[in-house]
């Protein structure tokens, strides 16, 4: 037990005071000290003792008594002790000032401290301890430069003054000169090896700041060895542990923080770290408590900012975003610059993102990015906001950077994939695959959605096998696998065979389950099988879905579409109705129904259905608008009523509707196509061609879209403009590319083009192919017969032809005749609706032509005979000639030589003349050019006039052709109208458009429910082309004209009307 002995005055006795048992009242001690006139250092000892026992009032009481003027006087020669008392007081107030958070009190404390130090200085202005005290006061006040000067004064005098060294080290440390500070601490230790542990703390902190963590750690550990209760060292070690981010170390670090907290509950850094810890363990109450304590304990900006940040974070996790935002903001307002502590800005960004305030969020994230340009999370968060704002490009940039910086960021890859789906399937796929492989590598659960997306993208890119693998992986094991792999086969492709299969399977004890999260995948797998033409498997899978999820209308619709593809319209309609019974506002279902009704020729119903879609969607459904546009177009060209006004109205309405779609979706190819058709219908071929070409290019760039219509339309335009070769190529490509050469209608267009180009044999060949494909279409036979008849006529018309050609012509004529006869034969069955009279006419004509051809054939054969004879004669002549020639040869050679000389002379003469005339030439050339210009102008005018006429005619003639066949043919035969090739082309175009556009059925849904319009009215239209070529091309065959009066009279009429129209 430590004791202090107060010597009793004038005796050798002493009063013993046990330090542990200091009287509660310091007055007792003071009385003794005063009474015994004890030396001043004893006073200080007692004061220090009270201080140690945290009895500050007693401490102050003693010191203030000790520094009173009375004492000064009495002990006036005991300078040092008096100064020590004053300095102790100064130090005390300095410390008070340092701890005080209120500015006014703080200042007051500092003033008192200053007063004590000044008083001490007055006693002895060279006392170093006073200077040290002053220096410490300046440090506390933050006046580092002055403190530095003050300490320097001391050190200049006493280079080994420990307190000054420490003070200077402190100054250097705070000025950020860690190396200098370190040196000073080292010196202190050299000078005073037994100095308190806290010196080593300074050493450790310097090392820490200098990045010498190992040495720092040693220093801190040494501090703790010396002073196990040193909070700073504990905290410092804790921070270092935590910073290693290794689980064990962090744990140890936390232990140290806790120990520090137990020793001294007011260390803000420990508090913050503990709060941080409890935040992660989710003990929000603890977080709040600790944070509040930390806030109360410090006014250090960074500490406060961290404390606020902890508060905010706690609220953030609890979902109280408003409060979180408030505290984040409090945290940021403590900071001078975001660089000091960036986390609250990030937090603010996140919270605002949650609150939907993208702008503010973005601003905060930008600050974060400013400080940490490579922060992936921030890049991602910003990318996310850009997506929400529709700034796809910027978003993509961010994600690309994020994925580049951190190749292992699954979320970034995922989000980038989602974004890329909008623009680039290939890249999107790559992103998704990257995410997938990362997830796999990490052994994480792979979301079904990801595999599904990968599958769908492969599907869209036509990589069906890869798509299948993705779906399969996602679906895992289940009954579907048996069906998909074909190990369990379902009976049939009958689409509406209900559930029996599955019910019976269940009865057999087979487990049938379709988890809700896998329905979409299953649906996609079924779609895939459909695409692979494995309709059986697709059907079973759709039925499997419906068995467990009867309301999954999309599956019903697919079944309907498949039935439709097989031309099973009634089943298809049944299925659609079923879907609509489940949801009568099911737009896709309604669309399909409308389309089916159109196909079943139920015009009014179709229109109602389509209009009902527009009602549901407030007129915003592009598909329905487009379909209505098509509806109007068909109505226009169908011409059930022969009212040209009505036709124009329908056409105009169609145009309006197409344009409406285009306004909403400028890159809707189907609407553009429709518009092109309407324009072509109005004769604006060049504009239409432009549109079609663009649509074609767009469609070619998109693998998911098949748009044969636009190819056909483009070909039609070429045909109409007389560019037959181009038209032919376009039709052929279309046939091959989209229809496996199986579409007789396009073959008919092709034949038509050959016909216009007067390529009769090609025309016939194409028609034969078409007949083979569609043998029940008798118009094709009729057309083929016409082509053969034309061929024969043309051959016989030629002035020069071989007997072989004539023979071929006759054979073709016979074939034509047989076909006409055959057609005339089946007329009774009313299968094709040809006009009998017309057929008879053709039959008669062919017969006559055949007779005529006989003569031709004879003539040709005779001619051939003659030619052969002539050849024989000439051959003999040639032989005779040969002999003569040989004899003459020599003479010739001589002649030639002479001739050459002569020629040379002539050439010279000519050259001379040439030069003479040179000058006049130039003038002449100008004249010629002028003439050319005139001609061109005239031609143009003519062409324009022609075009006008064309259009007029089109109008005149259309009603005629769109009529029922019988009437049409009759009319044609009776009062043969003027027929020019252009006219024909126009009508062919009209006819062609008429049906190809039925397929111009809209887009997005197309994928799901692609509807193929079979060409229900192809018969009528097919006929148009052949009808246009009546048996009136008889001019060359004189006999026919004489014998066959009806055709002759027709001929005359035709000429008449032609001249009229001119």
């Amino acid at each position, binding site marked *: 037990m430590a004791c202090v002995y107060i010597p009793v005055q004038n005796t050798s006795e002493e009063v013993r005071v046990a330090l542990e048992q200091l009287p509660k009242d310091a007055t007792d001690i003071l009385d003794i000290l005063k009474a015994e006139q004890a030396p001043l250092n004893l006073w200080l000892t007692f004061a220090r003792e009270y201080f140690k026992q945290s009895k500050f009032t007693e401490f102050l009481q003693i010191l203030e008594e000790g520094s009173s003027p009375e004492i000064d006087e009495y002990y006036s020669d005991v300078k040092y002790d008096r100064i020590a008392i004053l300095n102790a007081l100064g130090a005390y107030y300095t410390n008070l000032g340092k701890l005080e958070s209120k500015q006014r009190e703080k200042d007051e404390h500092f003033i008192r401290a200053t007063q004590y130090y000044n008083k001490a200085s007055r006693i002895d202005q060279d006392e170093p301890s006073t200077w040290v005290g002053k220096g410490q006061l300046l440090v506390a006040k933050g006046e580092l430069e002055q403190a530095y000067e003050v300490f320097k004064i001391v050190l200049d005098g006493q280079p080994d003054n420990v307190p000054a060294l420490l003070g200077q080290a402190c100054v250097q440390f705070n000025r950020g000169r860690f190396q200098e500070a370190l040196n000073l601490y080292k010196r202190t230790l050299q000078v005073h090896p037994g100095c308190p542990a806290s010196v080593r703390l300074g050493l450790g902190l310097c090392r820490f700041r200098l990045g010498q963590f190992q040495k720092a750690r040693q220093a801190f550990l040494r501090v703790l060895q010396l002073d196990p209760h040193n909070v700073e060292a504990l905290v410092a070690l804790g921070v270092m542990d935590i910073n290693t981010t290794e689980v064990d170390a962090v744990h140890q670090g936390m232990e140290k923080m806790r120990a520090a907290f137990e020793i001294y509950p007011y260390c803000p850094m420990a508090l913050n770290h503990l709060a941080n810890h409890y935040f992660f363990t989710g003990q929000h109450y603890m977080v709040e408590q600790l944070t509040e304590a930390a806030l109360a304990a410090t006014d250090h900006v960074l500490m406060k900012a961290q404390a606020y940040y902890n508060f905010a974070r706690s609220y953030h996790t609890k979902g109280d975003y408003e409060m979180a935002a408030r505290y984040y903001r409090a945290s940021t307002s403590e900071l001078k610059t975001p660089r000091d502590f960036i986390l609250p800005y990030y937090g603010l960004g996140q919270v605002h993102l949650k609150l939907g305030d993208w702008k503010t969020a973005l601003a905060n994230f930008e600050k974060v990015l400013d400080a940490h340009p490579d922060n992936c999370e921030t890049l991602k968060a910003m990318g996310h906001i850009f997506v929400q704002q529709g700034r796809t490009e910027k978003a993509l940039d961010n994600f690309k950077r994020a994925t580049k910086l951190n190749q292992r960021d699954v979320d970034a890859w995922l989000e980038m994939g989602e974004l890329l789906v909008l623009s680039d399937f290939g890249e999107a796929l790559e992103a998704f695959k990257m995410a997938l492989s990362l997830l796999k590598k990490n052994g994480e659960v792979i979301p079904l959605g990801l595999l599904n997306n990968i599958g769908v993208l492969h599907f869209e890119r036509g990589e069906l096998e890869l798509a299948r693998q993705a779906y399969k992986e996602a679906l895992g094991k289940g009954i579907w696998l048996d069906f998909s792999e*074909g190990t369990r086969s379902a*009976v049939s*492709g009958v689409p509406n065979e209900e559930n029996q299969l599955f019910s019976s399977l269940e009865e057999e004890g087979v487990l049938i389950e379709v988890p809700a999260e896998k329905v979409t995948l299953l649906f996609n797998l079924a779609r895939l099988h459909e695409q692979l*033409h494995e309709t*059986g498997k697709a059907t079973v899978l759709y039925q499997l879905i419906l068995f467990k999820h009867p309301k999954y209308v999309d599956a019903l619709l697919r079944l309907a579409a498949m039935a439709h593809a097989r*031309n099973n319209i009634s089943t298809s309609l049944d299925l659609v109705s079923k879907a609509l019974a489940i949801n009568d506002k099911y737009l896709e279902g309604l669309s399909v129904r409308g389309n089916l009704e159109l196909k079943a020729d139920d015009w009014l119903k179709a229109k109602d259905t389509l209009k009902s879609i527009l009602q549901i969607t407030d007129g915003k459904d592009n598909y329905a608008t487009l379909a209505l546009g098509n509806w109007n177009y068909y109505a226009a060209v169908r011409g059930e009523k022969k009212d040209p006004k009505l036709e124009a109205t329908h056409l105009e309405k169609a145009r309006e509707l197409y344009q409406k779609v285009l306004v909403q979706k400028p890159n809707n190819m189907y609407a553009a196509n429709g518009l092109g058709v309407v324009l072509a219908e109005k004769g604006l071929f060049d504009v239409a061609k432009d549109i079609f070409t663009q649509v074609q290019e767009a469609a070619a760039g998109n693998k998911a879209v098949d748009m044969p219509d636009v190819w056909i339309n483009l070909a039609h335009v070429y045909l109409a403009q007389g560019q037959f070769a181009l038209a032919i190529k376009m039709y052929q490509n279309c046939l091959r590319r989209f*229809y*496996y050469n199986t579409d007789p209608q396009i073959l008919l267009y092709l034949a038509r083009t050959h016909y216009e180009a007067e390529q009769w044999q090609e025309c016939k060949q194409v028609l034969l192919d078409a007949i083979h494909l569609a043998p029940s279409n*008798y118009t094709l036979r009729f057309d083929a017969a016409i082509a053969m008849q034309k061929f024969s006529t043309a051959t016989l018309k030629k002035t020069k032809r071989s007997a072989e050609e004539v023979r071929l012509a006759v054979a073709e004529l016979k074939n034509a005749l047989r076909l006409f006869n055959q057609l005339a034969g*089946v007329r009774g069955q009313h299968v094709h609706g040809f006009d009998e009279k017309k057929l008879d006419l053709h039959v008669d004509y062919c017969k006559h032509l055949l007779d005529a051809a006989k003569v031709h054939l004879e003539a040709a054969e005779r001619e051939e005979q003659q030619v052969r004879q002539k050849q024989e004669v000439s051959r003999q002549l040639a032989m005779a000639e040969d002999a003569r020639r040989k004899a003459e040869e020599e003479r010739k050679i001589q002649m030639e030589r002479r001739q050459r000389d002569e020629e040379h002379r002539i050439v010279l003469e000519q050259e001379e003349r040439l030069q003479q005339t040179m000058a006049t030439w130039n003038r002449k050339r100008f004249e010629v050019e002028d003439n050319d210009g005139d001609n061109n102008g005239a031609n143009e005018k003519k062409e324009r006039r022609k075009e006008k006429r064309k259009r007029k005619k089109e109008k005149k003639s259309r009603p005629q052709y769109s009529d029922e066949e019988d009437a049409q043919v009759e009319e044609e035969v009776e009062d043969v109208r003027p027929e020019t090739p252009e006219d024909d082309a126009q009508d062919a175009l009209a006819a062609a458009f008429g049906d190809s556009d039925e397929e111009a059925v809209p887009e997005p849904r197309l994928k799901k429910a692609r509807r193929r319009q079979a060409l229900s009215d192809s018969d009528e239209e097919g006929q148009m082309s052949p009808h246009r070529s009546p048996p009136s091309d008889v001019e060359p065959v004189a006999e026919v004209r004489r014998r066959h009066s009806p055709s002759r009279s027709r001929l005359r009429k035709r000429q008449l009307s032609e001249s009229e129209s001119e």
Partner: protein
Amino acid sequence: MKINSLKNLANAHADGVWAVAWAPATQSRGALLITGSVDETVKLWKGDELEPERTNTGHALGVVAVAAHPAGTLAASTSLDSYVRVFDVDTNATVATLETPPSEAWLMQFHPKGELLAVAGGGSASVKLWNTNTWQLEQTFMVPKSEVTTDNKSSEKSNAGKFVLAVAWNLDGNRLACSTMDGTVAIFDVARAKLLHTLEGHSMPVRSLVFSPIDSRILYTASDDMHIHMYDVESRSMISAFSGHASWVLSVDVSPDGAALVTGSSDRTVRLWDLKMRAAVQTMTDHTDQVWSVAFRPPGGDGVRVGRLASVSDDKSISLYEYT
């Protein structure tokens, strides 16, 4: 079970080849391959090298079908001009010219015993049976006018829909099946000369059909709806449906052992189907245009252990395969 390409004879004809049949081997020679083309010729080929044996002319317009008598001596060909020409396989002597104006003739098949030739009668909505001795028309089986699927709109064109495209005799020769443009498949009782019933399932043209060579009840049909159906003709039930072709299925034939189907399609492929697994096991891509017809070589002849299969296409070529 598999097929191997042996030979693809390019430009076998001057134009697309539409028809193929095998004339069975006789005592004096092996089986011959008969092909018909839109180039208006019928050609005969022999051996695995497809050496040209002869070219028959005389048809106008494209040759739609060829058929061979089971004895191997007679064959018939028909073209778009609707004449059926019956000729001696070895001499090319015309045996008969058959015509049933005004209707067309489409695909044909000889009765398994050779007594009759069944000719699909096109627009006449009937099948004509010709006596192969007298070459007189023996029977006409009418396809029923549309019954079940009648609605007002389609009835007008129903006759066009009943255009008869193909015929097939069953193993015993007591059933005859025919198919039409609208997908109807009609089954006739030959002995009683009456319609048994029609089979449902197709709504698009059925261009080819064939009975099983081992089970007289089993019929296979190929349709534009891209499917091949397998029916039990007696019970009228569909046993199975095969899907996988990307376009119309134009032709179907069964292997002589009855274990495999081969189909030709507009999608330019030839597919081999395992009937036990009921799945496509092989897809051949020798052709570059639609495959109009496929035919297995009938068994018999000298040294014929392995099967042969031929396919013909619009690409003007003939392909020969080994079937094992």
